[in-house]
């Protein structure tokens, strides 16, 4: 798959970038400085990155941001590394795990052909007793994800207990909501720390190439990745501390455990916490939905816009919300032919302007259609789509084959609320907000005093409202921690009104209904 060499907005400056060589299953791969293992593999036409845990089905890139386990590989002898977020280095040895001899040609994929029943390990291999050790050898041969090195390394423990840092406000997640929360909190005079799992802040903004609508105060007319730059600079000025490559692993006896570079573990003891952990892309149930080439819309954007990889030649998009429609446009800009956008509902989900734009460029939008199966042996070679009736049931005989090598799922997201749940915040199910969310009030405070939410983790919406929510949550957290003045309170009231204004349109209505439901729940 070639690199994106011509793009109306982005310039990847290939000629200036250093080439880096590494091996994957003994084969030499050449990537560029800035590539991750997965982006370099994908760009070299390697789509099968691992085999599935049990049945050795081919698996490739799905989310592209380290949230799923679809692309685990062994790197320099260390197993289970996420190929999509591990930067390449010269001479790196990358191996697929558990496949014989390689991910591409795995003899154990025979197990998949047997179409074994789910949960077969509980029903078979019962006896006789003398054969059981053999069964376990067999399980071990088939299952699992890689081996550890057998050498015994020397270990030196650091002295004393885990280091601990006290702050007024801890913000978890450095997307648009988190950045704005940290900035607002720091501007109130609160000692603020922002932790971000990835190597830079910006979150989803980093891969948004389109110009934003909405409020001028929130950078309307600016492209997403530019907004990320501007916000980062503003955050720096605000005095908030930022730790990147730092994962908040959990709420542990009143403190948040954070792990930097997967090595240094420390504790943060905050007075207040803002959780802005974003959302995870959903997948859809259909045959072969795990085939390499079936990808989340966000994963496709990541490949194109962060790594300059053309994700396919011919794409099918499932879902006609704004994400699906914008993605169609972005794929066209990257030189990918978009075969169709399909939508299960009878009407298009996203903004009319986006739909009109891609239609003008010749993309067909098929409403009342869904995907029945992905077709292909080791990677997507096509998709079978089908019409649905008013009850969303498939209409027999209306199946149609679309030839494509990329299937993009733009079917919504679910809020990341794990850490909120762990903190004991009350969680309610609100479909309008994307599923399970932590119940929160207008100041973004959850049922647990001092714990706030903002952005997609408080309910799926879009970047501008995430930024406003972030500011509200940041101010609220700072005030609760004893910092901030009257003027900050006033600013928060204004922000609440602005948020209401932003949602005063047919697309914001859904969120308004959702939030009302949540308050009543």
């Amino acid at each position, binding site marked *: 798959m070639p690199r994106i060499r011509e793009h109306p907005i982005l310039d990847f400056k290939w000629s200036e970038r250093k080439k880096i060589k590494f091996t994957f299953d003994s084969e030499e791969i050449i990537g560029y400085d800035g590539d991750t293992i997965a982006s370099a593999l994908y760009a070299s036409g390697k789509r099968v990155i691992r085999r599935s845990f049990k049945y050795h089905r081919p698996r490739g890139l799905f989310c592209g941001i380290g949230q799923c386990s679809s692309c685990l590989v062994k790197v320099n002898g*260390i197993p289970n590394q996420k190929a999509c977020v591990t930067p390449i280095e010269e001479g790196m040895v990358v191996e697929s795990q558990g496949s014989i001899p390689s991910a591409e040609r795995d003899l154990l994929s025979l197990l998949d052909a047997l179409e074994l029943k789910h949960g077969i390990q*509980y*029903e078979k291999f019962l006896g006789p007793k003398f054969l059981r050790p053999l069964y*376990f050898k067999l399980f071990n041969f088939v299952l*699992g994800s890689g081996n550890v*090195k*057998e050498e015994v*390394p020397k270990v030196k423990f650091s002295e004393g207990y885990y280091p601990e840092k006290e702050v007024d406000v801890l913000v978890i997640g450095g997307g648009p909501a988190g950045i704005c929360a940290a900035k607002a909190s720091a501007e109130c005079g609160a000692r603020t720390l922002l932790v971000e799992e990835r190597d830079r802040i910006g979150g989803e903004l980093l891969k948004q190439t389109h110009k934003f609508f909405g409020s001028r105060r929130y950078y309307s007319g600016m492209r997403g990745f530019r907004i990320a730059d501007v916000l980062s600079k503003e955050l720096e000025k605000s005095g908030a501390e930022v730790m990147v490559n730092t994962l908040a692993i959990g709420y*542990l006896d009143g403190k948040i455990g954070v792990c930097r570079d997967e090595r240094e*573990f420390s504790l943060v003891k905050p007075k207040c916490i803002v959780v802005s952990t974003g959302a995870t892309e959903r997948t859809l149930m259909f045959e072969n939905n795990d085939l390499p080439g079936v990808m989340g819309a966000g994963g496709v954007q990541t490949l194109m816009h962060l790594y300059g990889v053309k994700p396919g030649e011919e794409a099918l998009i499932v879902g006609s919300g704004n994400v699906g429609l914008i993605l169609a446009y972005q794929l066209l800009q990257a030189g990918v032919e978009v075969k169709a956008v399909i939508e299960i509902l009878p009407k298009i989900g996203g903004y009319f302007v986006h739909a009109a734009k891609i239609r003008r460029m010749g993309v067909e939008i098929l409403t009342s259609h869904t995907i029945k199966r992905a077709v292909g042996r080791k990677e997507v070679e096509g998709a079978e789509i089908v019409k649905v009736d008013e009850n969303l049931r498939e209409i027999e005989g209306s199946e149609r084959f679309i030839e494509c090598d990329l299937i993009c799922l733009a079917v919504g997201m679910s809020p990341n609320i794990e850490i909120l749940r762990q903190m004991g915040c009350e969680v309610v199910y609100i479909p309008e907000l994307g599923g399970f969310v932590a119940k929160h009030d207008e100041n973004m405070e959850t049922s647990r005093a001092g714990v706030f939410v903002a952005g997609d983790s408080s309910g799926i919406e879009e970047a501008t409202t995430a930024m406003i929510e972030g500011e509200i949550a940041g101010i609220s957290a700072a005030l609760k921690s004893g910092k901030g003045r009257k003027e900050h309170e006033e600013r928060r009231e204004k922000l609440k009104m602005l948020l209401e204004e932003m949602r005063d349109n047919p697309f914001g209505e859904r969120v308004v209904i959702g939030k009302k439901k949540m308050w009543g729940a």
Partner: protein
Amino acid sequence: MEREANVLIIGGGVSGTGLAYNLAKLGVEGIVLLERNYLGSGASGRCGGGARQQWTTEENVKFMKKSIEILERLPQELKFNILFRQSGYLFLARDEEQLNLLKENVRLHRKLGVETRFLDAEEAREIVPVLNTEGILGATYNPKDGVLFPFALVWGYAKAAKRLGAKIYLHTEARGFKIENGRIKSVFTDKGEIKVKEWVVNAAGAYSKELARKAGVELPNKPYRHEIMVTEPLKLFIKPMVVDLSNGLYMTQTSRGEVIGGIGDPEEESSYNLESGHKFLYLFSRAAIRVIPILKEIRLMRQWAGLYDTTPDKNPILGPVDEVENFLQINGYSGHGLMMAPYATQLLAELIAYGKPSESIERFSIRRFREGEIKAEKAVIG
């Protein structure tokens, strides 16, 4: 839902489901089991899955020998694979005292027909090649010990019990008892009242104490949080359950490949707290990496807590109580429920079905503590 039961079991862990199965197998009818959450949602589903014969007292070694024999035949009997992998328990000693304890154990075990072997550090490394032998003075190994998948044991028992006619109700909580003339007449649940003809069994694990109190029975059990973790799944490199006697660390790998392990915290106070703590991470990671250094490169995936239902002498309570005529106890395992339940539930089922178990369970009677308390009081007065 059934409104009447001959035997009503409260608790859907390994004790409750194991008892339901053993009763049904003996032909007892009218078995009803209530679980307020889901099967194995208490300590059964939160434990490490180990089962061993390597104990320090003759009674317990014999007891566990029986239990292991049962576990060996359960997959075929239940028609459900509990994934019992008999790859042994490896106990490590780091000082003379621990070493002597292990040596004594070997003598005791051999006498009782349990084939525990004494090993030096190098021999221990043959069993676990990634072992760091530094500071290890000796070890014992018994190849018949092993690990199983705890949920599978509970599911297997429950499925087989249901096949034989037992009724199991999930998300159904026992909230109180109607007691007349020292007998439980019925149990109140959040879904209505169930009349009891014969026995009520308290198999509520760490919550047994609260439940017993509702029937006016005071148990000496205390709940203690014990934490545990799993790593990412990997090919098997720690086959046995490795136990470090110097700090109570235990770890092995599941059949799926996750390293699973925990460590006790002697400073933990009794509570129903099930939250995760950072102190566990500290204690466990240091202890585990000291034994198997390669673990430092492996990710911890999940950490959780379960409750030990601990009695003063760390042995379970089995059998009737004095205050209520038809109220049986099967609890207080003090962290060993999963491995003891296969035999304990068989004996209790025999008591219910035949009026007398095939082996006396008198030593597990709650009376032992009451007599003990009297002695203690005398000592205070004296």
